[in-house]
């Protein structure tokens, strides 16, 4: 039966049996995690278990679980290696997507960004969630119906007149987008390892990468999926506990998502008394370029003037542009798109995007509460106090360099302007602010590690499949044996991991910036090509290839020019929103070039029609040789 379809079809009944078994396993896992945390906490409080031991227990336990799941899911089947056998139930794919999606940036830096930017930081909250609406309505069911392995597979089949060139360009775009993103994750892993577990940063990077490889090397997408579900559970528990306790302590009600309204109110009142600019007032920051001041000297370029875009500060324009850019980028990220290949049908794909966003929502709905509560606490019991008698947690974090106090006027009292924080402190210090034992701080660190590792897993798989499946097996050596393709994909994942590690070692500030760039790059390349490829039959290969190349180059050129010299802008937009221009150029080129050249042949247009039907298999076999399923 493997000959007729591209995979062995599973029935509804099998899926539902599978789903209830999964629910039991992961339910037990959740209970186990909570019991383990309670046990360690008791040992800490009553037996004096040292912090270092607690940290190591959490790191070894979680890495051990990921490795265990990874080894359990060893596979020799290509469809399992690339798309987890297409039998992941919608809810569990939602959790895996949640972990895949939420990186160190979401887990650790998001709340801090909101703390620093106030209202303006909400562009990230809306941008990184609103993109899922586009994904659900415009992409996911059609990608699933197409049902191959990679996003370049789709581009190559849809634009088959120039199959190899279209595939090559798409694969290169996927590699560029994912590599900019994965380096930041690896950096995040190193930082967490060094801060919480006392490892050297460089050692931390490679221990973390070893963790990633344990999950992805043996079982590819299959083991990545099931580790990501476990990672999601760890990260969401770790994220919700500290802020819930803090909310209970500050307001008496353990429901931070609702109670931070009170915190916002108090913040605004205190700020008014102190004559500070309001936290909730919109459009008062130029959203970018602050980091360029730090990172350019590191790579030997002069730093730009810090304040730019004066004309546009105070207007909603940059906020809206960045939001739009993040949304379209979200919908175009290959490592998220391929997750919808793994569900049983297009109907499941639609539902699964809903579950994905629901699980992401649990964290994003809570992030502003972290920011508001800690800002309230700082304004209430840190600012305006005698520097000699600040709360103990402040002094602890001063030692890490994440919090700086500089009594500029020498009056012994801390003014707001004399306090500087690095955003990451907001999540990391909350357990301490809430008066929780170190065990919870270690759990938060394990959660941050889970977030960074799970995202790195998904990204490395995209890079390695682009190299081994798209470029090697489909372009360079189409006759490669089954075993050789497998070998290549494992070698490539190793190479990609080592390269990402090497790129993370110098620890450039530039790298954190690159996360935002990944979204602009995805918005400039995949979003327009997928949108027109699915919904506009007249789009052809020439248009798509011209669009992808033009979009990519425009985006990179704008980012580079504006980053190095912030005075170079169009419409006042910074490099963070460069995707707007890349996307516009991509759409324009695709439409113009497609209309100027011959339409795609009839069998391709028929395939586009078939994508619309949400049941059954695609009848036009897109490529011979894509059949997978059996053993070698």
């Amino acid at each position: 039966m493997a000959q007729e379809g591209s995979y062995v079809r599973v029935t509804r009944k099998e899926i539902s049996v599978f789903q209830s078994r999964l629910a039991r396993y992961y339910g037990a896992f959740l209970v186990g995690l909570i019991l383990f945390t309670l046990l360690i906490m008791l040992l800490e409080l009553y037996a004096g278990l040292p912090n270092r031991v607690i940290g190591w227990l959490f790191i070894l336990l979680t890495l051990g679980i990921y490795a265990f799941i990874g080894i359990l899911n060893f596979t020799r089947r290509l469809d399992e290696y690339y798309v987890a056998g297409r039998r992941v139930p919608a809810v569990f794919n939602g959790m895996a997507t949640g972990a895949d999606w939420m990186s160190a940036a979401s887990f650790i830096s998001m709340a801090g960004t909101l703390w620093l930017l106030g209202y303006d930081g909400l562009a990230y909250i809306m941008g990184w969630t609103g993109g899922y609406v586009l994904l659900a309505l415009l992409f996911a069911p059609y990608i699933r119906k197409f049902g191959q392995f990679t996003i370049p597979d789709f581009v190559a089949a849809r634009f088959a007149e120039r199959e190899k060139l279209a595939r090559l360009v798409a694969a290169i775009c996927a590699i560029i987008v994912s590599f900019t993103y994965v380096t930041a994750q690896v950096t995040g892993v190193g930082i967490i390892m060094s801060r919480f577990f006392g490892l050297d940063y460089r050692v931390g990077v490679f221990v973390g990468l070893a963790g990633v490889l344990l999950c992805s090397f043996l079982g590819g997408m299959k083991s990545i999926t099931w580790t990501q579900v476990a990672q999601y559970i760890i990260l969401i528990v770790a994220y919700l506990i500290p802020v819930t306790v803090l909310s209970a302590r500050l307001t008496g009600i353990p429901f931070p998502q609702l109670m931070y309204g009170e915190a916002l109110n108090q913040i605004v009142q205190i700020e008014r008394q102190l004559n500070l600019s309001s936290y909730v007032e919109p459009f008062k920051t130029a959203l970018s370029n602050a980091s360029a001041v730090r990172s350019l000297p590191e790579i030997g370029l002069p730093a730009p003037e810090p304040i730019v875009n004066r004309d546009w500060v105070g207007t909603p324009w940059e906020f809206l542009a960045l939001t739009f850019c993040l949304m379209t980028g979200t919908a175009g990220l290959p490592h998220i798109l391929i997750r919808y290949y793994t569900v049983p049908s297009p109907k499941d794909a639609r539902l699964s995007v809903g579950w994905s966003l629901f699980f992401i929502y649990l964290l994003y709905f809570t992030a502003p509460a972290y920011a508001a509560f800690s800002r309230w606490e700082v304004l209430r019991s840190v600012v305006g106090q005698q520097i000699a008698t600040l709360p103990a947690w402040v002094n602890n974090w001063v030692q890490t360099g994440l919090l700086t106090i500089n009594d500029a006027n020498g009056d012994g009292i801390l003014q707001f302007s004399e306090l500087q924080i690095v955003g990451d402190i907001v999540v990391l210090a909350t357990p301490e602010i809430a008066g929780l034992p170190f065990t919870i701080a270690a759990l938060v660190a394990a959660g941050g590690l889970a977030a960074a590792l799970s995202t790195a897993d998904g990204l490395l798989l995209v890079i390695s499949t682009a190299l081994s499946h798209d470029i090697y097996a489909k372009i360079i050596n189409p006759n490669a044996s089954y075993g050789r393709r497998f070998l290549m994909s494992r070698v490539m994942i190793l190479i990609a991991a080592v390269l990402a590690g090497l790129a993370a070692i110098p620890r450039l500030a530039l790298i954190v910036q690159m996360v935002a760039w990944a979204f602009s790059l995805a918005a400039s390349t995949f979003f327009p090509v997928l949108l027109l490829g699915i919904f506009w039959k007249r789009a052809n290969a020439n248009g798509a290839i011209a669009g992808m190349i033009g979009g990519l180059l425009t985006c990179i050129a704008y980012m580079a020019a504006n980053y190095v010299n912030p005075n170079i802008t169009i419409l006042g937009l910074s490099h963070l929103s460069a995707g707007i221009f890349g996307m516009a150029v991509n759409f324009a080129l695709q439409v113009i070039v497609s209309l100027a050249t011959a339409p795609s042949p009839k069998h391709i247009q028929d395939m586009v029609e078939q994508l619309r039907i949400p049941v059954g298999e695609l009848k036009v076999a897109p490529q011979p040789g894509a059949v997978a399923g059996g053993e070698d």
Partner: protein
Amino acid sequence: MEDQRSQAEQSRIAAYWRENWRLIIILLTIWFIVSYLHPPFAKALNDIHILTGFPLGYWLSSQGAITVYVILIFTYALRMNRVIDKKYGFDEEE
């Protein structure tokens, strides 16, 4: 005969596609409104306080919009899977 059947099939698919599009357009319009139309007025909206004291402008971006996104996706998935697919006979599994 063969032609007629495939013509009926063609128009069934076309009608299904139109209905799909109509739903997409309605939901994307709501998506656009909750994403892009309130931020320009955030400053004025912040003078209104809701729930436990949230300034309305801040609340719309931090909780309002993203809650609507979750509802929009489930609305699309459930309406397509349970109503529209069925209406056009695309609900059979295997």
